């Protein structure tokens, strides 16, 4: 399976984040840096998120090829708290069907002095596709691509877990619901495994489980009681309506009977287990109101932390870019005698 991890195109020559496209292939140090930086944006006394001038003078363009309210709003808030200039565009995918027009849109927006794109798109791999076609100094941040990845959501979940459990290390985590179609779950699984959770379980009917769970390093349970027994963290996944219309499950009611998180079931997990959900929740479908509003639920905290984590990712990427520029300038001055480095020097001076 070694061929499954290719060269990581989201890292620069110093091994630092240049884009943020997926959790896959990142090292523990990358994730820890994001979590620590996010922590620094939260006032320890009031739990409020600070406004900082880190991205003053930078332009961030939020490109949403797929509708979203929550993710887009938290990104916008995060960008504004970093003092960036923010533009958001909803792009009808129908208007951008042909390859050239899709890239023309991107290049036009890039020409408006954009430093970073935050992109959501219905196709798996779309964020990577855009990252391969932007100018070298422009950054791409994946806000969800098809069923592939949603790395900032996964990081805010890791942040929430760490807040409550001190660390992700050695935890037993159960993810319940539609694993097959979920980009969030794919990213969560990768993050949990990089941060060395002890066991990652996924729970749900066979129709909502991926074809090859072993390739993802997860254990599949079709029985809810068994699946959440003795776990430290339960992550409930939102069930989309189209799963019923495409005959993957019979009804919301039956799903709740089999996999809904009730107080009785929650008692099977560790007594201090936390309950998470990327929201918005379907009460009585994935989770009972009693649990969603109960003491073990951390669902609303996740939303707040989402802002801090997105601020962390954007500020890290911009600071990496500055470091890279400096690194290149130093390299160029070291090679001063070499005539072929003239170009590099000019670049560094500009």
């Amino acid at each position: 399976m070694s061929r499954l991890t290719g060269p990581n195109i989201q890292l620069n020559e110093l091994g630092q984040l240049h884009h943020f496209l997926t959790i896959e292939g990142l090292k523990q140090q990358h994730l820890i840096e994001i979590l620590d930086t996010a922590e620094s944006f939260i006032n320890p006394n009031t739990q409020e998120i600070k406004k900082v001038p880190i991205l003053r003078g930078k332009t961030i363009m939020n490109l949403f090829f797929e509708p979203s309210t929550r993710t887009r709003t938290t990104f916008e808030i995060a960008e504004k708290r970093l003092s960036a200039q923010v533009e958001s565009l909803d792009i009808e995918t129908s208007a951008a069907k042909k390859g050239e027009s899709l890239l023309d849109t991107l290049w036009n927006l890039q020409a408006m002095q954009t430093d970073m794109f935050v992109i959501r798109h219905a196709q798996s791999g779309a964020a990577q596709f855009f990252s391969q076609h932007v100018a070298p100094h422009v950054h791409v941040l994946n806000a969800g691509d098809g069923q592939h990845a949603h790395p900032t959501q996964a990081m805010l979940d890791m942040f929430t877990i760490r807040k409550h459990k001190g660390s992700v290390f050695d935890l037993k985590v159960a993810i319940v619901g539609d694993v097959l179609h979920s980009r969030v779950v794919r990213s969560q699984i990768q993050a949990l495994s990089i941060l060395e959770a002890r066991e990652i379980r996924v729970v749900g009917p066979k129709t909502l489980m991926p074809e090859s769970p072993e390739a993802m390093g997860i254990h599949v349970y079709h029985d809810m009681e068994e699946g959440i027994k003795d776990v430290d963290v339960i992550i409930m996944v939102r069930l989309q309506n189209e799963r019923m219309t495409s005959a993957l499950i019979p009804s919301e009611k039956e799903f709740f009977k089999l996999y809904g998180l009730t107080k009785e079931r929650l008692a099977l997990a560790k007594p201090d287990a936390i309950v998470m959900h990327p929201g918005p929740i379907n009460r009585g479908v994935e989770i009972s109101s009693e649990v969603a509003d109960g003491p073990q639920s951390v669902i609303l905290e996740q939303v707040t932390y989402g802002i801090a984590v997105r601020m962390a990712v954007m500020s890290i990427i911009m600071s990496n870019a500055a470091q890279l520029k400096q690194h290149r300038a130093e390299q160029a001055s070291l090679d001063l005698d070499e005539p072929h480095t003239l170009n590099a020097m000019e670049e560094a001076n500009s």
Partner: protein
Amino acid sequence: MKLVILNGRIIDPSQNLDQVTNLYLSRGRIVGMGDQAPEGFTATQEVDATGKWILPGLVDLQARLGEPGSNFAGSIASETKAAAAGGITSICCPPDTSPVNDSQAVTELLQRRARQASTAFVMPIGALTIDLKGERLSGIYSLKQAGCVALSQANTPIRSALTLKNALEYTSTQDMVVMLRCEDQQLKNGGVAHSGPVSSRLGLPEIPSSAETTALARDLILVEEAGVRAHFSQLSCARSVEMIADAKKRGLPITCDVAIHQLHLSEMDVLGFNSLFHVSPPLRSMQDKQALLMGLKSGVIDAVVSDHTPLQKDEKLLPFGESMPGISGLETLLPLLMKLVQENDLDLMTAIRCVTQNPAKILGVQRGTLDINQPADLSIFNPEGIWTLKVNEMLSEGQNTPFQGWEFIGQVEQTFFQGRSVYRKNQV
């Protein structure tokens, strides 16, 4: 013009021949072979092929030639030149043109263009149903009269089992081969990648193997009932190979092919989301790839095709799932086949037979052979010399190849079509 090709190693599976000798061509036909020229033959031109191989012109059962319509890149002129560069001199073009080749007019247009280009023998495949919609039958007899060598639905299989049953029964009385691509559209469900570890990790919409095998099971039963001669196109699954082997054992008059890229690539190649690896049927598992290769070795799979699909650059400049599937494959069919021989995956005779004698036999045409009195379609192949595939040097107007940068040993130096030189390396 009387041409003699001297001292080439002549490899012709149709005659079980592998021998160094001379080949004599006259008036577009092969007139003799051996150290002695046929009686009355005085060469007006000589080609020295010492150290080279002489191969029958390849017969490709599926290559899109870009005409008519704008679905694909290129034209009959450009794509037959690309074919010649790959040693291919006979080409079946599927009916998914625009307009669809479901009428005499389109068939005749294709033939006229092919005659103008005069670089390869173009054999149109007629649409089994009008506009490939899978609803009403095309004028099958008219298509045959116009010169269609076979019928197919290209990449859009007939959904209705009843319509397919009728189409097969009707065709069975017309002595024509029906080419079937097996894919259940409902099981495909908009998928773009083989369902396996790679699709699980990348979150690409999945095409299960059962999309092919359930359709194949249905089609095999209907073919048996109708008693029609059927050819199954571009198999991709290990299970399909088993099913074909069983059906052949039962004595069904069937044949099948595989696209050359399925013998070199697998789902693993999709990992980078590179849309150049987006093909239909999808690249499947390593086990499927091995089974296809074994099927070819054992003779269960009869032919290898390029499945040439030249695309505008635009069509691949999209995220994986939105890009058009397909590879521009005419120029890599023979090199990739030779690579299998060099890697000891396939013996030379079988490799050449799968792209000459066998496909010609499937179509019932006198091509893909160097036998006396047959059209002088052949290529001179230099078995030595390492070269690298460079997209900008390709003759096809479709530059959509995932094989850019691959190193190959051996290359076509010159191709003859009906006795005329239609391609010479570095002298296009």
